[in-house]
């Protein structure tokens, strides 16, 4: 690349001096609405619970102890690993992973379809993708509940068409939760992949075919590596909120399909809650997500320097 000329150097200086005032609003927003609440949660997780919700300002590891260690019902047995909450985590990760894969399987072809339409009609398709977002997530999830319940329209239609003879028990299943997550987060998969595919130059595919690559090999060696950043962004945008989701598991999954989000929500709801425990679960969830992100960043960096 060309070296910095005196002109661009002075432009750099101007840019630097303007940087602080330009970034100040962003810093403020991030500070007040992200760092501060997270810090508060971190502090809460190490405090003692107040019986009717809230906290007592007294250091305690009780929340983390409750999460990881089992001392029996009355707290007098030898400590063993507590599986209750880890199981909830495991199930949540599995549910979120399945939802992510579902979103990818449907979202990638959808994004591809939109990105390969003529430019003047792409806007319409993208607009249609965002239409569900005009309705509140809660209402959409409740509607889904009505749609798939035992005597809901879906079962009625399938019964009417003679596909099934007994109504399907869809509600309160893992499937219902995955459906809810898939439906809630599909656009988060479509949009970043669309952005990546839109920048994809189809002459690359032609060049690959010209150099004896079959369609499949072209997809594997050329298309996927080039649009990979979009796919990864989409997967993260679906996986992370799915992991902490509470509406879909609460409304569609019922009691036995409990996920982390519901667990956390419960701790802050009503007077029965345990704030430090809710905060601790949040911190553990956040650490998990951060670890995943760091692993991804590391593998991405390794690939750069390959």
């Amino acid at each position, binding site marked *: 690349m060309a070296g910095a000329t005196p002109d661009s150097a002075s432009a750099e200086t101007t840019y630097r001096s303007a940087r602080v005032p330009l970034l100040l609003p962003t810093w403020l927003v991030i500070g007040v609405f992200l760092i501060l609440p997270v810090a508060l949660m971190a502090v809460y997780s190490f405090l003692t619970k107040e019986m009717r919700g809230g906290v007592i300002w007294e250091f305690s590891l009780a929340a983390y102890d409750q999460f990881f260690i089992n001392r029996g019902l009355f707290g007098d047995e030898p400590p063993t690993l507590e599986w209750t909450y880890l199981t909830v985590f495991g199930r949540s990760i599995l549910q979120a992973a399945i939802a992510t894969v579902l979103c990818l399987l449907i979202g990638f072809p959808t994004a591809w379809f939109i990105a390969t339409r003529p430019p003047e009609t792409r806007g319409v398709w993208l607009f249609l993708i965002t239409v569900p977002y005009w309705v509140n997530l809660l209402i959409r999830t409740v509607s889904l509940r009505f749609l798939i319940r035992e005597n809901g329209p879906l079962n009625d239609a399938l019964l009417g068409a003679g596909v099934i003879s007994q109504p399907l028990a869809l509600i309160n299943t893992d499937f219902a939760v995955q459906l809810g997550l898939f439906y809630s987060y599909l656009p988060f998969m479509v949009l970043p992949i669309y952005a990546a595919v839109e920048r994809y130059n189809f*002459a*690359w595919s*032609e*060049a*690959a*075919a*010209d*150099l*004896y690559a079959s369609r499949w090999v072209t997809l594997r060696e*050329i298309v996927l590596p080039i649009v990979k950043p979009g796919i990864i962004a989409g997967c993260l945008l679906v996986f992370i909120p799915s992991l902490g989701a509470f509406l879909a598991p609460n409304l569609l999954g019922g009691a036995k399909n409990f996920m982390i989000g519901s667990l956390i929500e419960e701790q802050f709801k009503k007077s029965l809650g345990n704030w430090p425990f809710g905060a601790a679960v949040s911190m553990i969830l956040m650490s998990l997500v951060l670890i995943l992100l760091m692993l991804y960043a590391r593998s991405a960096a390794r690939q750069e320097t390959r």
Partner: protein
Amino acid sequence: MTCAVDIRTVTKTYGTFTALHGVSLSIRDNEFFTLLGPSGCGKTTLLRMMAGFEDVTKGEILLFGQNIASLEPNHRPVNTVFQQYALFPHMSVIDNVGFGLKMKGWSKEKRRTRAGEMLEMVHLTDFADRLPAQLSGGQQQRVALARALAPQPKVLLLDEPLSALDLKLRQAMRMELKQLQEDTGITFIFVTHDQEEALTMSNRIAVMSAGHIQQIGSPQDIYESPLNRFVADFIGDTNLLQVEVAAISGDQAQVILPGGQRVACSTATTEKGTHHLSIRPERVTLVPIGSGLQAVVEQVIYLGTDLQVLVRLDGGTAMQVRIQNAARTEVPSPGTRVGLQLEEGAARLLAD
């Protein structure tokens, strides 16, 4: 000589639009063949049909005698240099060059060796590990060339490969391309709208317009003996004058200019009547009044190496003449009466 590509009455339609009207064309082995024409003439469509990116609506394309209509692009022994190069952005230069070999199942060592040789050939050995985005346009162009040549195709297709380069680089690349073609002995099929490119590099040129081939011939044929108005006008500068044919015998004719002056010329038509006469401006010399065609100088435009002299023939027809801007050239001043001497090959009667 063997025929590398044989195009037999190929037609291409898109809905109601016909891009190619029954085009026939034979390209010889080891030939540098150029498809030349303005944008929209069908030249790129024809090239893409050879590569396999477009279906043939009617007719057939033979590659060394084999009909390739049913072959997918990845099964055709031809490679393409794309207009915007289409280098794979996520692969290093050497991986780009080796991609075709990898697809052909070459081992990693053999691939690296061949790709290295290819890079040496295009003088990019030091850039093997860069990404395409880290190269200049001219370097990317050469990578694209090396990538397409690495699998040793029988035919190399080049889709306006020089159009994205600046003038100086373009001129240098012309010589390099020509040299490369002679060294490798691979048949090059080159698409361009730039007549200078076509004239300097090609063994033969097919001039195309509106989905038809207007003329096929060597650069000299095309320039010196254009068949019709389109070719005469598209290749080089020319004066097109509407004339009346007085006499035709064989390839020679006598025509009458609008002002009544007579001119002897070669002819591309055998029909009498009204036709167009092409007079190449650089094949006309200014002589003292009394001999040649009588005219008045209207304007002299300074072009550096040349002077463009705009004249009006007696009878009212405007014409341009080019004279060299040599040290001893007498620059005619506007208003002077001059004679125009047509040199051998200056004038040609055209079919329409």
